C-alpha cells in the first residue's frame, strides 16, 4: 500500500488517473476499513494539505467552497451562516468535534450515504459539484450526482474539487428574502447519525407570501431525495391559525414529504415511523427557514430551536 501526500492538484489528478484514491479527513474511509466494511484502497493520495481545495471565495454573487474544507470551517463561516444557513445546520450536527474538524464537505458529498447531513441542504440550495480529472473539469447539479448508496456519477479518475452555491436571491424580485434550514431526527445530541432528516430553502416576498420552496429529505430513500410538486407559491409563509389558509404551507410540506418518502426499516427505525417523522421534520425545516427569512436569529443547528428536544427555557 502507498500513501502520497499531494503537493498540487495537478499531481493529485495524475495519481488518480493511475488508479489512486483520494483521502482527506479519512473519517469515512478509515472507519470503514477498521470496521471491516471496506478495505483501504491500495494507493492513496492525501489531499488535506492542498490549499487550493480549502476555504471559499465569492463568485457571481454566490460562493465556491473548496472540497477539502472541513465541516468546522463551514460552521464558523459568517457567509455560510448568513446565506446558506441550512448547510451550517448540517455541518454543526455531523458526528463529533473530531469528525467535524477532520471531515470535509467534499468527502461527505462523495461518500454518498443516504443518511448524510450536508446532502439535503445542498440540494435545496441548488449546489453544483465540480468534478475534475486529467481530462478536464465539469459541473454536476448535486441532485444529479448520487445514483445509489455509496455511488455517484463521478468517474474513478475524477476528484470533487469544489461546491458552487449560487446567490439564493439571484432570480427573485427586489425585496424578496431567503432562509434555509436542515433538521434531523436524532436519538441523542452528539455522536449521532440522522434517523431521517429534512432541509428547506424558502424565499418570501415583502408581504410574507411564498415565492419559492425547495425541500429535500435524507435517509428515506437510496439517495438524498428532492421533494417534487412542491409548488407553494402564493401561500402565506406564516401559518395564521385564525385565518383561512388551511392547510398551511407547512402542512403541505409535511404531507408531500410523507407521501414521497420511500423509507426502509432497519436498526434505527421502522419505515412507518420514518415516514411519519420525515413529514414532521420537513414542516419544521420549512418553518425554521421562514423564520430565518424574516431575520429571526435562530440558533445553529436549528435542531436546538425547531428540532426534537429543542431548548425551551432554562431548567434549574
Amino acid at each position, binding site marked *: 500500500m502507498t500513501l502520497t501526500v499531494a503537493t498540487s492538484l495537478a499531481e493529485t489528478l495524475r495519481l488518480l488517473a493511475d488508479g489512486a484514491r483520494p483521502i482527506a479527513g479519512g473519517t469515512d474511509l478509515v472507519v470503514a476499513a477498521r470496521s471491516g466494511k471496506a478495505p483501504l484502497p491500495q494507493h492513496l493520495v492525501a489531499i488535506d494539505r492542498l490549499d487550493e481545495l480549502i476555504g471559499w471565495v465569492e463568485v457571481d454573487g454566490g460562493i465556491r467552497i473548496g472540497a477539502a474544507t472541513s465541516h468546522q470551517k463551514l460552521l464558523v463561516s459568517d457567509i455560510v451562516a448568513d446565506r446558506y444557513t441550512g448547510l451550517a445546520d448540517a455541518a454543526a450536527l455531523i458526528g463529533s468535534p473530531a469528525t467535524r474538524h477532520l471531515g470535509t464537505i467534499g468527502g461527505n458529498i462523495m461518500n454518498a450515504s443516504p443518511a448524510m447531513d450536508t446532502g439535503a441542504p445542498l440540494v435545496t440550495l441548488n449546489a453544483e459539484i465540480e468534478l475534475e480529472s486529467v481530462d478536464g473539469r465539469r459541473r454536476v447539479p448535486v441532485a444529479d450526482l448520487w445514483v445509489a448508496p455509496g455511488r455517484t456519477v463521478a468517474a474513478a479518475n475524477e476528484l470533487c474539487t469544489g461546491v458552487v452555491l449560487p446567490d439564493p436571491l439571484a432570480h427573485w424580485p427586489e425585496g424578496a428574502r431567503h432562509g434555509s434550514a436542515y433538521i434531523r431526527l436524532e*436519538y*441523542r445530541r452528539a*455522536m449521532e447519525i440522522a434517523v431521517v432528516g429534512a432541509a428547506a430553502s424558502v424565499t418570501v416576498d415583502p408581504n410574507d407570501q411564498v415565492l419559492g420552496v425547495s425541500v429535500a429529505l435524507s435517509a428515506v430513500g437510496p439517495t438524498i431525495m428532492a421533494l417534487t410538486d412542491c409548488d407553494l407559491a402564493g401561500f402565506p409563509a406564516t401559518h395564521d391559525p385564525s385565518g383561512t389558509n388551511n392547510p398551511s404551507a407547512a402542512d403541505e410540506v409535511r404531507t408531500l414529504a410523507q407521501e414521497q418518502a420511500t423509507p426502509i426499516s432497519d436498526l*434505527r*427505525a421502522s419505515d412507518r415511523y420514518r415516514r411519519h417523522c420525515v413529514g414532521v421534520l420537513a414542516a419544521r425545516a420549512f418553518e425554521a427557514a421562514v423564520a430565518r427569512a424574516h431575520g429571526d436569529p435562530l440558533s445553529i443547528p436549528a435542531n436546538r430551536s425547531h428540532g426534537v428536544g*429543542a431548548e425551551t427555557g432554562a431548567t*434549574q
Partner: protein
Amino acid sequence: MTFLRADGPDKVSGSGRYTADLSFTGMAHAKFRYAEVSRGVIRSIDTSAARAMPGVYAVITAEDLDARFPTPIADRNLFAHQMVRFEGEVLAAVAAVDPETAEAAAAAIEVDIEPLTPVVDLAGAATAEPIHAEWRSYDAPEGIIRDGNVAAFSAVTKGDVEAGIQAAHLVVTSRYVADASHAVPIEPRAVVAQWEGDKVTVWTSSQVPFDARNGLATVLGMPTNRVRVVVPHLGGGFGGKCGFHFEAHVAALARAAQRPVKLVFSRWEEFIAPDRRREGMIIEITTGVSTDGEITARRATVTLDNGAYSADAEFFAQLAAMHLAGPYKLPAVDVKAELVYTNHQPSGSVRAPTAPQACWALESHTDELAAAVSIDPVEFRRRNLVGQGDEGPVGQIYEHIAPSECLERAVTAAELACVDNPLDSDEALGVAVGWWPSFAVPAGAFMKMSDDGRVQVITGAQECGTGSVMTLRNMAAEVLGIASDEVELIYQDTAVAPVGPGATGSQTLLNHGWAVENAARVIADQLKELAAIELEAAAADIVLASGAASVRGTPSVSVPIAQLAATAAEGRLLLASGSAPEREYPTVNASNCVGDAGMGSWLAPQFSCHVARVQLDRDTGVCRVRAVYAAHDSGRIINPIGAHGQVEGGIVMGVGQALTEGTQYDQEGRQRNPDLLHYKLTTAADAPRIHTEFVEIDTPNAGPRGSKGLAEAPNVATAGAISNALARLIGASVRQLPMTAERVWEQIQAHNQEVGQ
C-alpha cells in the same frame, strides 16, 4: 479533608498504563475464533491451515484445554466442546507474531457447525427443548432443580395473598418487558500472560483479580501461590468485567507459544463475547389496594433471560424478586422469579444487577396503582413505604432507615426548582424510589510505615473507576494524623495483597474501609507508645495530627511522626494488618434454589428517590431528561466529591438504560447492534442537570464511620422516574425498556386511538 484522587493525574495526563499498553520482549498477539452461530453441533474444527501459516506460534482448542469455567453452575467450557450455545462462544485461540497474522490465522481455521434452531423467545424458553441436554451431570450448588431450561428460581411468599387480593378495593395488573443491555466500559478488555518456569503472571482488565487468580489456578491445575494476577489501571467495568473470563485462554496460549501473549478485544468482541450483559426480563405484577391507598397484597412473576450459560447470575432471581417486592409495606406477597436458559449471550453482573429493569417495572406499576385510586403518586408512596420497625418481604425487621426522607427531600428539591421554572406543557415530573443491599464480606489490609514516616497501604480492593479505593488512602491518613499524599496505595496485585472480592457489590468502603482503618490503628497505637516515651506522657493522652504526635491539650509539646518512624526503624518496625469485622446477616424467609446471597445481604440497605423532569416531543416521541433530583440514604458520606460523582454517573447511565440502550437480536439469536453507533449510550450533551442530596442517618451494621455503599444505588431508580414522567405526558405507560423514541411514539398513537383522538 481534601479528596484529590491519587490515580487522577495518571488517568488525565495519559501517563497511566492500562493492560493493552503493556509489551514484553518476544510477545505474541492473540485472536479468538468465535462460533458466530447461536446453537449448533460442532462437526469439526480443523486448525491445520492456521498452524501452517508463517508467524503463527500456537493454536489451541478444547482438545488442548478441556476445562469448564468454575462458576457456581459449571455449565460452560473454556473452549466450546461438541456444542455451541451462543454466537460469542470461543472455538479456538491463535497466538501469532502480530495482530494481523493472528486474525488471518483465526479466519483460516476451518469450522463445520451443524446449526440447530436456537431458543430465542424468552416467554417460551422455560419449556423449550433443553439447551443443556446433559446438564444433570454438571457440578452445581445443592438445591439447583435442573427443570427444563430453568437454571435457578426464587420465591418470596408471605401472608395470604389470595385473601389480600380479594379484600382489595381495586386490583391492578401490569406487564412489562425489558430488553437486554450492556455494561459498555470504554476500555475493551485486554489480557497479557507471561510464564517464568512453573509460575505465571497475568495482567488483566478485571474487576475481580482474586476471582481471576482462582479461576486460573483451577483451570490450569496450579496452586494459587504460583499464579499472580495484576490489574493495571482499569478503564471502567460497570460489572461487565466481573468474573474470571479469558485469563486462562491467554495463559494456555502463552504456555503453548512459549512466549508472552497479549489479547486485546475489539469493540465488537466486547459486545458479543463476555458472559456479562444485563438480562432481558418479562415481568407481571398484580397488586391490590384499599380505598385509602394502602397495598393489601402483591403477586408477581419475573422471567430472567440467563442466556446460554450461568456466569454469576444464579442468584439474580433473588435480587429480581426483592426488587419486585420493593421497599413497600406488603401484608402479603408472592413473587416468583425464574432464571431461564436461552441461546443468547450469558447474563451476569452489570451495575446493580436486575434492579434498573425490575425497579422500572415496579415503579411504573406503582404510579398505575396511585392513578387507579386517584391518589397523587408521591402521597401513595408516603402511605406505603417501609420504615423503621417494619417487616420486609423476607422477614427482615428494618432498623434505622430513611426511604421516606429520600422521597421528601428529592420531591421538595424538584418542586422548588419548578417554582422558579414552571413546567411547560410538554414537560412533566416523574418519581421513583429504589433500594439496594449492602454486601458484608471478608476483607483485609497490610500497612507499613517506613523510616521517613511515609506509608504504604497494601489492599486487596480493586479500583474500577468509582474512586472508593482512592478514599482508603485518606482514611489511613486521618487515623495516622498525616497528609493523604504521604500514603501510597499498593493494590490490584494478588501476589502481595490479602484476598478480597474485588470491585463488586458496592462494598469497597463497607469492607476494605474497616480493614484499612483497623490496620492504621495498630500503627497509630505503636506511634503513640513511642511518643509517650519521647514526650514523657501517657500513650492514651497522645494525639496524632498534622504530621506530629502531641500531648492532648498541649499541642506545643510534640514530636514529628517522621522522627518516631525513624526511631521505630531501629527497633520494632511499623507493620500492621487489619480485617473487616464479621457481621451478622438478617434471617431470610424465602425459598431459593441456591443460598440467599441476594436476600440476606440487606443488613444495611441503601435507599434512594429520583425525580426526573422530562420533556417530550409529542410529534416524534423523542424525549429529553432535563433534570434529575436525587436523594440517597447511603449512610454517612466520607468522600463528598466521589459520592456526587457516583450519583451523577449512575443517573446518566440510567438515562441511557431508560431511553436508548438496548441490545437488539435477530431471529438467530445474534446481536444486531454490537457497536457504539447503534448501541446508543448517553453522551455528555444529553446529560440532565443533576441535583443530589444525601440523607445521612446513623445506620446499624453500616461500614466504617457509618458509611454504606453508593456505586450501584444511583443506577436503580432513574428509569422508573423517567417512565412515570413519560406516562403523565402520554396518558399511558410505555411498557418496554428501553423506552425508545419510536416506542414512545407508538404508545402515543395507541393511547390517542384508545381515547378517540
